[in-house]
């Protein structure tokens, strides 16, 4: 088991390394000169060259990458071009609201999606299956920001049950924090739940056709035991895979949904930085998000080893 865990961790390193190069290169190779856009339209060539030196983008690209990744390893994310604040401080302020939204939405998606998928997969053509079809049909055409607006309209504006905007830290006032979090998390989580439920249904219904399920039923085990102990356990690997892949979608979705509910967070930071062409901030923000994504997928890979002894031995 130890060798398996170590092997998986070592495999994640090149992925992270490659994606950091990808983020870096995308931001460098695409045409457009940040120095020129920073200097303004009627700046002299000397002024542009000066800014270029300040930003360190007069250096060759590989060297820029090494400087950036070296600083990154020491926790120095550089300073924002626009307002001179350290990027690490900007991130420290915007990451928690986004993470808390992503985590709650994700938990909600798991709590709705997996039970619904299991019930529909174990009982094809039952009421559960129809419920899943209906649920998918409703959510499939509605992007999270649209469902966010609808929820905002119904529950905040018409009914007045929830606040329309802002965020309260959980440590300050847990109840109020959850009230602010409920609608955005619901908007983000429900769409995701449909995706999870569909995959779970497929995985479980495939397993239900196996001989050992028939044997388990023939032994006289209750439907509940057959589904939970035999079917669900064996379909967990595809479910964990798809659940982990959804993490990227949750974080990207959180960035957009935040804007619907005017929550401060990574969304606002990234959008503002894009509009200001503050690419060091965007670059660092993306690396943070991608690292979380790769990290969660690594955990999923490790989970396979716990879920299925065959994976461990390979």
């Amino acid at each position, binding site marked *: 088991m130890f060798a398996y865990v170590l092997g998986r961790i070592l495999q994640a390193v090149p*992925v992270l390394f490659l994606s950091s190069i990808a983020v870096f290169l995308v931001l460098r190779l695409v045409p457009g000169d940040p120095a020129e856009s920073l200097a303004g339209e009627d700046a002299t060539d000397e002024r542009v060259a000066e800014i270029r030196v300040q930003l360190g983008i007069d250096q060759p690209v590989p060297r820029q990458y090494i400087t950036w990744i070296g600083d990154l390893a020491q926790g120095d994310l550089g300073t924002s071009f626009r307002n001179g604040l350290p990027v690490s401080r900007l991130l420290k302020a915007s990451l928690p609201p986004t993470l808390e939204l992503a985590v709650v939405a994700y938990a909600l998606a798991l709590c709705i999606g997996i039970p619904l998928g299991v019930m529909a997969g174990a009982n094809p053509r039952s009421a559960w299956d129809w419920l899943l079809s209906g649920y998918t049909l409703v959510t499939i055409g509605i992007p999270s920001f649209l469902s966010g607006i609808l929820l905002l309209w119904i529950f905040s504006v018409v009914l007045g049950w929830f606040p329309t905007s802002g965020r309260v830290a959980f440590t300050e006032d847990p109840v109020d924090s959850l009230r602010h979090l409920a609608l955005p998390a619901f908007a983000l989580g429900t769409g995701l739940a449909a995706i999870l439920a569909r995959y779970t249904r497929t995985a479980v219904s495939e397993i239900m056709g196996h001989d050992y399920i028939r044997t388990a039923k023939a032994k006289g085990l209750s439907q509940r035991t057959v589904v939970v102990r035999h079917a669900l356990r064996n379909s967990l690997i595809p479910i964990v895979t798809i659940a982990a892949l959804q993490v990227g979608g949750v974080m990207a979705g959180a960035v957009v949904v935040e804007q619907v509910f005017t929550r401060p967070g990574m969304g606002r930071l990234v959008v503002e930085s894009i509009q200001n062409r503050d690419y060091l901030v965007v*670059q660092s923000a993306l690396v943070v998000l991608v690292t979380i994504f790769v990290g969660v997928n690594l955990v999923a890979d490790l989970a396979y080893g716990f879920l299925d002894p065959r994976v461990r031995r390979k």
Partner: protein
Amino acid sequence: MTAPTYEAFPAESWRRRKSQESMLFGTVDRIVRNPQGLIALLGLISLVLLAVFAGAIAKYGPITQSYPGAARFLAPSWDHPFGTDELRRDLFARALFGLRSSLLISIGAVSIGSSIGITTGFIAGYAGGWTERIVLRIVDALLAFPGLLAALAILTILGAGNRNVAIAIAFFNIPAFARLSRAQMLGEKNKDYVKASQALGAGPLRVIFGHIARNALPPLLTQVSLAMNGAVLLSAALAFLGLGDKPPAPSLGGILNASKSHLRTAWWYALCPGAMLAFLLLCLNFLADAINEATSPYSRRKV
């Protein structure tokens, strides 16, 4: 439930045989005979017609603020099917032109992204060896990014605007198409007809694009439909974030963003364009399902 028949030619054989004559005809035939596919096709055709003839269908211009009877926040009526907004503009016209820009961005982005992705994937799969390994590594690194984040990275440098949104979406479509078409290529490249044409002295380009592509492309149609769905969604999300063309240019995402501040006074502001976007996404999803069923040999038997 009828007993299985063992006749060599099933009863509806003329239809079956006709559909086998041409792969494209067969696929379209199977899509139309699937209720989901029919709804999707009819829905998409009407939306495309609405977008193409937006100028003729809408009574007002999408950015016209002054016309006889102009007022803020008029509720939907025969004259203004979607009502009017805070600047007295007709929301129906804005939604139609927004739909047009959404479709243009998505079609442009998906055609560019899929062409590059498919070509890369075919070449990588056909060549094998180091070419394949390098392409796969790059593709995997790109796939590690959720689409929206990749698009945000590109827009940082290119700046906001519809054209740049299209470029960003095209870019993020490349890896998925490259991976799928490489897999298709692996399935085809050792078949007899490929060996036969190689033996006749056909060069790699001719073999890939003249022979293999014809057989490997239809299954990629599902991905085209899914990619369109993703592109519409992503372009709406980016417009919602304010990264599309600057106002007053109409876009579905932009209208939704603006509607947010007026939910109390004008329920139709978000609801009507939102419903249009949802219907478009639903049709594209249905179409993807129908194409998938029509092209996959497993589900085909059920029809």
